[in-house]
């Protein structure tokens, strides 16, 4: 047991890397999804085609495949020697942005036409309409699927272990191998569960915030 505990700091270091991948991916892919969503909805056909193609490819192929592809592509095509961690982040951002784009697009398309008409009738620009009228209203609807993706992302970080990035999964694996004991798997499971639990808590708070303008029982 003490031996297993001896590996805990190592696993916690791995957890920090896991959290790094998670946070970097989320912080970069959440905003990147928006122009893709708007592009997909664009009336300019070539732009909408490109955005849809992007989503099609990144959503339709395995994350692992994309990761390995970029891992070899950067050194071969551009002579860039990227660290494994950078490859992981680039791949995850591109992959998750595709999912978020589709979530945004669904949210935007769910807003009633009347909102656009009212905005137009008041003389709002397209930009003002999107930023101040449409997007704030999509928040409540897109939050649950975004949280869902974020939870999937926590677990997807484990795929980075295949590129020799020492995140929680990789650290756990080496602990199990060295100890020939399965307990580290349980520790890892608990750490993942804590992460997803925290996410669920944050999501609950956000959901409450974004439903603040819903009907309250006043009349």
């Amino acid at each position, binding site marked *: 047991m003490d031996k297993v505990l001896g590996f805990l700091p190592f696993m916690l270091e791995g957890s920090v890397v896991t959290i790094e991948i998670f946070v970097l991916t989320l912080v970069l892919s959440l905003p990147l999804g928006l122009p893709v969503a708007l592009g997909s909805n664009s009336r300019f056909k070539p732009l909408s085609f490109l955005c849809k193609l992007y989503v099609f490819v990144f959503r339709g192929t395995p994350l692992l495949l994309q990761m390995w592809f970029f891992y070899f592509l950067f050194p071969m095509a551009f002579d860039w020697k990227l660290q494994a961690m950078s490859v992981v982040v680039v791949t995850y951002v591109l992959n998750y942005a595709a999912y978020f784009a589709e979530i945004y697009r669904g949210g935007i398309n769910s807003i009633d036409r*009347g909102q656009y008409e*009212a905005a137009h009738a*008041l*003389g709002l*620009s397209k930009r003002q309409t999107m930023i101040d009228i449409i997007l704030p*209203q999509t928040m409540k609807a897109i939050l649950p699927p975004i949280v869902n993706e974020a939870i999937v992302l926590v677990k997807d970080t484990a795929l980075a272990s295949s590129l020799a990035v020492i995140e929680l999964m990789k650290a756990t694996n080496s602990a199990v191998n060295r100890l020939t004991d399965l307990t580290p798997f349980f520790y890892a499971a608990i750490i993942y569960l804590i992460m997803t639990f925290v996410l669920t808590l944050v999501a609950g708070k956000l959901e409450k915030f974004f439903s603040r303008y819903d009907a309250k029982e006043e*009349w």
Partner: protein
Amino acid sequence: MNRETVLEMKNIVKDYGDFRAVNGVNFSMKKGEIVAIIGPSGSGKSTLLRCINGLIGVTSGEIILTGDTGMVFQHFNLFPHMTCLENITYAPVKVKKENKEVVKERAMQLLKMVGLEDKADVYPAQISGGQKQRIAIARALAMEPELMLFDEPTSALDPEITGEVLNVMKKLAESHTTMIVVTHEMGFAKEVADRVIFMDNGVIVEEGEPKEVFENPKSERLIAFLSSMLRA
């Protein structure tokens, strides 16, 4: 174009694919005039109204406006994530770049005018349909448009609460706000409008003073329409 003219439409045609929604409408109105457009569903009334403020483009014809328009919709279309006050102040501040405090003061006056000062900080989801429509009227007026367009403003409301909206519109009429009202409220058209236009199949079939149109309809179609409204 007369100095007093605020809107002139010349030979307006609007097609949706093969369907001709508006088929050659000529129409003009003067400042302070109140026009009611009546007619059966699908007659092109709403389409015509939407052509005026550019919500939809015309297929052919010419529209000349001397100022801004404001519009009130059948389904209110308030911004649900903004309080009633914010709904009213948003456009003057963000679009016309007016001073926030000045706009707020005007908004409060408008809220008073529609009888909803106490709802300033309430979200639209918390008020009734009639109240929503009154806020929507205040929102449109806050932009100080030269011409107000009403697209069936009471059609989505329960009959017993249409009165509160119609009363606000009567107030506007008394203060000589120029307006076009697409409506099924024949009583309102008769009482408030200076001119009534009857549309059917995308054309103006008859127009004139309310008395003339309602008491002495000339065309078969208007006679049929009016009797169908009486039965309803």
